[in-house]
């Protein structure tokens, strides 16, 4: 009986060690603490955009011109950190007439460009209901936009 328990424990230990080693070595092992990060105060998710506004929003693309040219949300306006004033100048009529929520996106979860553009936009013009898209372009692509 004791022998069986010892063997079972040894097998369990080996299996655990193998799992641990796999996690330690695997190049794309997920972090053990990985959880869904909560939305920041200035962020909205794709789900919220659909639920709250039925997707009827004004999209602003905060990526560089080359990425915008390669593909963007239909109807999105280009406004990035590089040419902020110049591009904003071209958007004044649209923003003056706009009544929709403004959603700004950049490349992905790690890029900060959309947040910087949002901050500068709010500093420059009295825009209301403007948010950063959580997950950026990657989230848009995942949603099939």
């Amino acid at each position, binding site marked *: 009986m004791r022998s069986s328990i010892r063997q079972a424990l040894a097998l369990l230990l080996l299996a655990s060690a193998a799992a641990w080693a796999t996690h*330690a070595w695997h190049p794309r092992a997920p972090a053990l603490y990985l959880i869904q990060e909560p939305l920041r105060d200035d962020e909205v998710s794709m789900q919220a955009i659909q639920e709250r506004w039925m997707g009827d929003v004004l999209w602003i693309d905060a990526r560089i011109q080359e990425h915008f040219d390669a593909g963007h949300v239909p109807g999105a306006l280009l406004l990035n*950190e590089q040419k902020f004033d110049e591009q904003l100048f071209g958007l004044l009529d649209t923003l003056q007439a706009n009544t929709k929520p403004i959603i700004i996106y950049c490349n992905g979860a790690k890029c900060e460009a959309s947040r910087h553009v949002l901050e500068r936009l709010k*500093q420059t013009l009295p825009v209301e209901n403007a948010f950063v898209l959580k997950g950026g372009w990657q989230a848009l692509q995942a949603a099939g936009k």
Partner: protein
Amino acid sequence: MPAFRLILLALASSAIAHAELTLGVPAIELKPKPEDEEVETTFKFRNSGDKTVKILGLESACSCLSAELDKAEYRPGEEGTGTAIFKVSTFVGRHEKFVIATTDDPKQPEWQIHFILDVPAVVDIKPKTLQWFIGDEAGPKSCLVQFTGDEPMKIVQITPTRENVSFEWKELKEGREYLITVTPKTTQDITMGALKIETNSAIAKYRHQLAFFSISRKPEPEAAAKP
């Protein structure tokens, strides 16, 4: 049983080994000159850990900054060289930016390369936006334009984009300071406009500047409800 212990020992030691990519400095500083359109720099770093590390990707938090590393793998103790390019465009002042390298080492899955971009201000407009609220008195408001570069500049022309405002400007310090005063005709309608300020700067990118003005609804407290 000795074989079993050896396996455990090997597993434990391999789990302890890790890569550690480090810069020799806290941050890489980039200081372009006023006329620079972009600035490039190289930087050194080291794998200070005891395990070879493979770089899986590089992602910049700012599209203004791109970086490349000279190799994809770095052995323990090996030094690497990176190249960073910063597109200056209209950036002004001191900015902190990051490039994130993803690695195959679970102990250091991401290595954050810290950059400080310090762009000298040549034109400073304060405030950048003149703002009125609907129903406010249609009184004048002013912004100060300062030319803080090595060479003085002059404003040669100002053009507003809306007919709802009148403006005037005067030179306070020759080639250095100007005061632009804008007066709306009414504050009844929502307006977002700009003043196109043309200068005689020798550097092309400073020849056209913008100041903004707006007439908007007074914001209600907590008006922008969080979805």
